């Protein structure tokens, strides 16, 4: 079949940013997958609660301190995260480097607090179904903090390497900030479920 | 081949022996269900035939217009819309019919005769509750019910999920560990109705049958009275020797025979095993020969079941089989 050129693409940018980027949509799709997983874990928690004669099963409600500080910290981390996203969009290498270092630290801090959250549940995973589901939920969310932290650390290294100053890298940083927003956003219903539902 | 599946099914149904078939109902719930089954199958068969005729005509119809006209497209659109509307109406009708049948199947009344069935890998433990003066009793793999009365089955499980299903009397209901399910069982005429575990439950899911014996109320009362009694000392010398062997060998560690020292609880209660129609959950008829075959080598007949092969001399084997047979 013959061709006839009817459209010239020469002037298009050689990398799309934001919604014009393939990886942005990929990140969104993975967020949808993991968000479904988080939602289902909450459903399982509420399902088990609906069957139990009393809730929590054979344990005091969790201590609020560690979890609440972590929640506050996660919410606070959104501020530098939003700035980082803005700097990535404007492709400001120096600010992006600083922002990534800050976000790496803000990725590690919740992990330290998380260590105190597990004992604050006053129950272990192998004691009963209540213990099992709270450990599964905390574990699920910890995995997400951890994977995002590793990604942030790798990106930080990348931005200090010769590959750093490139629109594609800024796009990756931007997607990473979007994913961190997701990690924070999914924690809020989990926090409410884990810490406040047992007190109802 | 499938043009008249309803006809075919009813033809097959009329020819079958009928002791375990949804198409040979003898209890109110199963009868309601059979009406629903035949109705839905008939309607669906008609729908299938209509669609197939349309398919045949669409594929093979004669000369076609050279080009699609707007008029024929509009006519097609209207036909499709009408067909979808018909689908909606039929679906709604079937849903309503299904609701009504569900209601007709009914729930057991609280004062109905209650029998507890406990699923075990791979047999059925059956408890008849006692009343004030009369003690309850336990049996296995066989339920007797009086005809013409609602019977409330309480379904529980000792290990994994099983499913109680006697198709000629009612639909099925699962026995779920940690839960207690109920179902209504009712037979309209005397007979033996076979059922079988319907939820996959491990190695011997295939050999987990249960017999429901429906009998006239007087017969039922006579049966219940005899089941309440302890086992009696057998008169036959072989059987008496078998009794001794039974108690001396590992048999007594797992089985109970009321009236003897045997009080194991992991296997079926054998107090009146000789009166049951089958042994080993419907595996064979209760005869001295089948009992001997079963005791001699349970792992060949029902591989993986929890009854071990107990080393016995042939005399011991004969005597124990005779004793089992005598436990009427």
């Amino acid at each position, binding site marked *: 079949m013959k061709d006839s050129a009817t459209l010239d693409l020469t002037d298009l940018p050689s990398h799309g940013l934001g919604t014009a980027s393939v990886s942005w949509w990929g990140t969104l799709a993975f967020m949808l997958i993991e968000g479904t997983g988080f939602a289902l874990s909450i459903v399982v928690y509420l399902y088990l609660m609906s069957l139990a004669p009393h809730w929590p099963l054979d344990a005091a409600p969790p201590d609020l301190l560690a979890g609440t500080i972590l929640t506050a910290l996660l919410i606070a981390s959104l501020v530098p995260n939003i700035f980082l996203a803005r700097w990535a969009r404007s492709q400001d290498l120096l600010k992006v480097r600083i922002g990534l270092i800050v976000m790496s630290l803000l990725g590690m801090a919740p992990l330290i607090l998380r260590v105190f959250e597990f004992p604050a549940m006053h129950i272990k995973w192998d004691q009963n179904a209540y213990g099992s589901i709270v450990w599964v939920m905390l574990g699920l969310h910890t995995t997400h903090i951890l994977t995002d932290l590793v990604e942030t650390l790798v990106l930080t290294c990348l931005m200090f390497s010769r590959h750093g100053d490139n629109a594609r890298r800024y796009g990756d940083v931007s997607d990473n900030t979007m994913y961190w927003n997701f990690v924070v956003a999914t924690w809020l219903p989990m926090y409410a479920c884990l810490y406040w539902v047992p007190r109802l | 081949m499938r043009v008249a599946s309803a006809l075919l099914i009813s033809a097959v149904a009329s020819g079958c022996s009928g002791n375990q078939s949804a198409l040979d109902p003898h209890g109110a719930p199963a009868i309601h269900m059979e009406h629903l089954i035949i109705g839905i199958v008939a309607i669906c068969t008609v729908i299938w035939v209509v669609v197939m005729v349309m398919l045949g005509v669409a594929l093979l119809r004669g000369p076609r217009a050279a080009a699609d006209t707007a008029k024929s497209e509009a006519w097609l659109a209207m036909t499709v819309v009408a067909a979808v509307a018909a689908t909606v109406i039929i679906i709604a009708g079937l849903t309503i019919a299904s609701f009504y049948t569900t209601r007709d199947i009914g729930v057991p009344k609280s004062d109905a005769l209650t029998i507890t069935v406990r699923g075990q890998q791979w047999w059925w433990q059956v408890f008849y509750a006692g009343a004030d003066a009369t003690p309850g009793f336990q049996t296995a793999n066989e339920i007797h019910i009086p005809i013409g009365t609602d019977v409330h089955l309480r379904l529980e499980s000792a290990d994994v999920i099983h499913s109680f299903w006697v198709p000629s009397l009612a639909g099925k209901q699962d026995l779920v560990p940690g839960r207690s*399910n109920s179902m209504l069982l009712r037979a309209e005429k005397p007979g033996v109705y076979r059922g079988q575990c*319907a*939820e996959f439950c491990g190695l011997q899911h295939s050999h987990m049958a249960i017999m429901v014996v429906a009998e006239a109320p007087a017969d039922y009362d006579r049966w219940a009275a005899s089941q309440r009694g302890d086992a009696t000392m057998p008169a036959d010398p072989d059987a008496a020797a078998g009794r001794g062997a039974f108690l001396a060998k590992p048999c007594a560690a797992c089985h109970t025979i009321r009236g003897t020292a045997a009080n194991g609880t992991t296997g079926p209660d054998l107090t009146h095993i000789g009166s049951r129609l089958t042994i080993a959950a419907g595996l064979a008829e209760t005869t001295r020969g089948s009992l001997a075959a079963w005791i001699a080598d349970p792992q060949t007949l029902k591989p993986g079941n929890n009854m071990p092969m107990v080393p016995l001399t042939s005399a011991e084997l004969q005597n124990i089989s005779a004793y089992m047979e005598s436990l009427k």
Partner: protein
Amino acid sequence: MTGRDSTDSRDTGFNDGELDHRLASVWSTPPGLWGALSSVDHKIIGRRYISTAFVFLALGGLLALLMRLQLAQPEARFIGPDRYNQIFTVHGTNMMFLFAVPVMQAMAVYLVPLMVGTRNIAFPRLNAFSYWMYLAGGLLLWIAFVLDTGPDIGWFAYVPLSGPQYAAGKRADIWAQMITFTEVSALAVAVEIVVTVFKQRAPGMSLDRIPLFVWSMLVTSFLVILAMPAIMIASTSLILDRLVETHLFNPAEGGDVLLWQHLFWFFGHPEVYIIFLPAVGMVSTIVATFTRRPVFGYLAMVMALIATGVLAFGLWVHHMFVAGLPRLGESFFTASSMAIAVPAGLQIFCWLATMWAGKPIFKTPFLFVIGFMVTFVVGGLTGVMVASVPFDTQVHDTYFVVAHFHYVLVGGAVFPLLGAIYYWFPKLTGRMMSETVGRWVFGLIFAGFNLTFFPMHILGLRGMPRRVYTYQPEMPWSALNLFISLSASILALGFLLFFIDVIRSARSGAAASSNPWGASTLEWATSSPPPPYNFARLPVIGSLEALSDQSTALPVATGLRVDRRELLVSSVVEAIPEARESSAGDSIWPLWAALATTATLIWSIFTPWAVVWGSIPVAIALIGWFWPKGVPEDES
């Protein structure tokens, strides 16, 4: 960075021969083993995926024959209960997780980029990774089976039978972890397809110009994305219960055994539509081509696809009608299960209308579509039957249900798939399959299938439960079972002939032109098989029927670079060009990542610490995967 490139790296400056040469040099997979292992070409991976899935189909079919051999006579001693339970578990698991879902996704991996007019799938390395994960999961299951440690708990793995107390050894863990493998690969492919369809369509291919097959794969991919997390939570919980003593399914400690069934069927019912919807897309494509007209009611078809996808999540409880849930709740699920017949019916009527208005050409692919119509309508109607609670309590877990879902899955999905293989074989291999043999294949499979599975309806109504390794001679089932087993050999013969035809045609079939069927979708606008870059110049789409007017030249877009793998990103709704985007080059890292993940997942059924230590090589492999190598594809 726009405009920095010199014009001689653009496709505008070359004649056709020189352009092909340049594009081939950038897009080709290098020869040899290393090239094969590091390839990210969606066509190579797609073919690999399809071939592997058909190998699993053949193996699963052999298991089915073993079961039929055992069931041909009452109380047969050919296979014992322990082995039989493994056989039916592996048959079901294999057919669902290793054949049906992957093969549909594999067809999409091959076809969707071609049909939307792009040069490679989105995230090509993820695509390579997903194939390796799929292969590893399949090998795990099959090697375990051959080792006599295959799962023996049914493909549904109900607790407590699959739980720590009643499933000794690692059999159930192998099942659960195999699910993780196929889940990871299915989710990855779903993401690739969604993004490819959303962002990589040819300019002008607005939402209302997407081919129906692509629509069906888009809806399917969303079903995968929303349904698979449920089985992910379920299988992980099962492993946790078995390995580290959590109590999620233990009723004595506040867990619940029905929780498993809810989670499993919340995934398991959409799973049926994950398999069926792609088949709908295939049927629509084949019907359009072989009736010489577009499918009647494009918009209605798309709406039916979406409606089916939405309703699929509202009817999982109809698998649990006998579990003892409240009757009122069950009635709701009767209504919702019945309701899905409406979009299904709409699609059937639209195809009938298309056939009515078109001029049918009875080639093999179309024969399979006719076979699909005949059998799928049976399966759909028996589906309406089992949606009714009282009907279902009689036939649940009997051979009636075995017949029902084989009519839906084989009649509804495998027939269209076989038609699709005959239809797209020229595009897959550059050769035609034999029309004569094709008719025999269709005849044998159609007759064999119906003779095998139709009598099972009757067996079920006459009281024969599923998943029994034998039945007793006094039950009135022997004659029909023998008949079924004999009929199964006809079905097997049909499949054997199919496989022979595929292998023979792939080696020495007649060469195919670029558009042998005179079809109108974009994959036929390029050669058979397509070059590594799919399209020398990206097509520009002006109507739903991209190639309907064969006389005029195909409008194309120019201006892409030829010194790196470059494709076009366009907007979601209107497909307006937004950016030129690089597409990842070949890489061995997806294979390393898959191997590291495989080691971690298998190790983790023995000790939970595997997750901790195994994550280190996985992380290294992923960093190697994403770290820029200084090639043009890595820079903007």
